[in-house]
C-alpha cells in the first residue's frame, strides 16, 4: 500500500534519527524518493537530528592520537596509493588456497579451474574461483577479515573498487531447516544485501558478489529464516571492518 504524506510526516523524524523499524523505514524512504515536499521536510529533520551531535560534551582529542593520525597520513602520501606489496602477495596466496579448496569440492569445479588456467589476462567473474584470481591481480584489491565472537567460524571478503567481491568462509554453524546465511554491507546508516548462501557439510562457503555497494565500512554474515532476510534481523555470525 502506498504511504500517504500524512503518515510519512509522522515517521520521518524517527527516520532522520535512524530509529525507525522495518518495514516502516523502507516504506517512508520509498515515499520520500517520490515526494518532493516530504523530502524537503525530511532534510530539515535530518539537519536537526545532525545537530544533536553538538549536545555531546566537548572534549579535546589527545595529542597522542593527533600525532598518530597525522603520521599515518604522512606514511600514505597519496589517497590513491596502491596497497602494500604484502597485500598483493596475500591475495595471490588466498587465490591459490581457494583454488586448492575448490578442487576438493568436485570434478566439475576442478575442470572449470583448469579451463580458466589456460586463459590469459583478466577473467570474467563467472564464479568465485575466477573472481578471486581476477582480484589477485588488481592493484587496489582489498581483504577484510571476518571473525566470530564465539566458535571457530571465520572468513575473508576480498574486493576491488568497481569490481566484484568474493566471500570465503569456514566453520560456519550448520543451518537449521528453512534458514540461510546472508552477506550484508553496512555503511552510512544503510545495509545492502550482498547475497544469500548455504555452507557445505564442513561449514565452508564462498559467495560471489557481482555488484557490491560503492561504500560500506562493515561486512556481516547473518543467519536468517529464508523468508525473513531483512536488514537488522537475523543472528550475526561473522563481522569485519572495511
Amino acid at each position: 500500500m502506498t504511504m500517504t504524506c500524512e503518515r510519512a510526516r509522522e515517521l520521518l523524524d524517527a527516520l532522520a534519527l535512524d530509529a525507525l523499524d522495518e518495514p516502516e523505514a523502507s516504506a517512508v524512504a520509498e515515499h520520500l524518493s517520490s515526494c518532493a515536499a516530504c523530502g524537503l521536510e525530511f532534510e530539515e529533520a535530518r539537519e536537526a537530528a545532525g545537530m544533536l551531535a553538538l549536545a555531546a560534551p566537548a572534549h579535546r582529542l589527545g595529542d597522542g592520537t593527533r600525532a598518530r593520525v597525522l603520521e599515518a597520513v604522512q606514511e600514505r602520501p597519496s589517497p590513491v596509493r596502491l596497497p602494500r606489496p604484502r597485500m598483493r602477495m596475500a591475495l595471490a596466496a588466498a587465490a591459490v588456497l581457494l583454488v586448492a579448496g575448490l578442487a576438493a569440492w568436485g570434478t566439475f569445479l576442478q575442470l572449470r579451474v583448469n579451463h580458466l588456467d589456460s586463459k590469459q589476462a583478466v577473467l570474467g567473474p563467472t564464479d568465485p574461483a575466477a573472481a578471486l584470481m581476477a582480484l589477485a591481480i588488481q592493484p587496489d584489491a582489498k581483504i577484510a577479515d571476518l571473525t566470530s565472537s564465539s566458535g571457530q567460524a571465520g572468513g575473508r571478503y576480498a574486493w576491488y573498487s568497481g569490481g566484484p567481491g568474493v566471500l570465503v568462509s569456514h566453520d560456519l554453524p550448520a543451518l537449521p531447516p528453512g534458514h540461510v546465511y546472508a552477506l550484508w554491507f553496512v555503511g552510512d546508516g544503510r545495509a545492502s544485501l550482498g547475497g544469500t548462501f548455504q555452507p557445505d557439510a564442513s561449514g565452508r562457503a564462498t559467495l560471489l558478489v557481482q555488484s557490491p555497494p560503492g561504500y560500506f565500512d562493515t561486512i556481516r554474515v547473518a543467519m536468517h529464516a529464508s523468508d525473513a532476510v531483512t536488514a537488522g534481523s537475523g543472528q550475526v555470525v561473522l563481522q569485519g571492518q572495511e
Partner: protein
Amino acid sequence: MALSTAVHWQVVREVGGPAAESIGGPLPARLPVDYSVLADDDLVERMCRADGEAFRALFERHADIVYSLALRIVVQRPVAEDIVQEVFLKLWRRPSLFDASRGKFVTWLLSVTRNRAIDERRVRSRWFHQELPSPFGEEVLPASDATDPARGAILADERVAVRGALATLPPDQRLAIEMAYFGGLSQSEIAAQLGLPLGTVKTRTRLAMQKLRTALAGREDPVG
C-alpha cells in the same frame, strides 16, 4: 596602495617588456595558501589532489567535535580515539566519499562518525558481550580548547543553542531522542528498554523532534 609582489611583477612584465624583467629577483613560484581560511569543501577538493596540508587543516578543525561525539556514544576513550583515527584515515583514503551537493561536510563527517560509533557499540554488546557504560550518565565537564578561537566561539554558540533547545523538552521526550541518536536504538528497542508501549515512544520522538526543529529553525548549520 602597494601592490602585492606577484601583481607588481606581472604589471612590469606587461608594460616594460623583456628589459623590465631584469629588475629585482625571480617571480615567486606561487603564493602561500592560508588553509585556515579555506572552506571545508575547498579543503576536501584539495585532498582529492593528495594535498596533505588540506587534510591537516580539516583534521585540526574537526577532530575535537568528532572525538566528542564518538566518546559520547562509546564512552570509552581508547575506543573513541580509534574511531576518530578510523574516520579521518578513511576520509584521507577516499575523500571522494563526500558529495558536496548532498549537504555540508561537517554534517556528513558527524554522520559517518555516529554510524561508526553506534556500530562499535553494538558489536561490543552483541558480539563480544561487553557492556559499555551507559552514554546517558553524568556529563563529563567539557574541556574544549579549540585550536581556532573564532571557530571555537561559533561552535560554543551552536552547542549552547542545541543544549538550550534540548533543555526545553520534557525529560521523557529528550530521553527518547537521545537514546535514538546517541544509543543507536530503534523505537522498538527504546520501548523495550523503557517498558513502554511502542506508540508512546513514537509520539515522544515525534513531539521532541518537532520542538527541536522549531527551536533550531533559522540558525546556521554548525561550523559549516
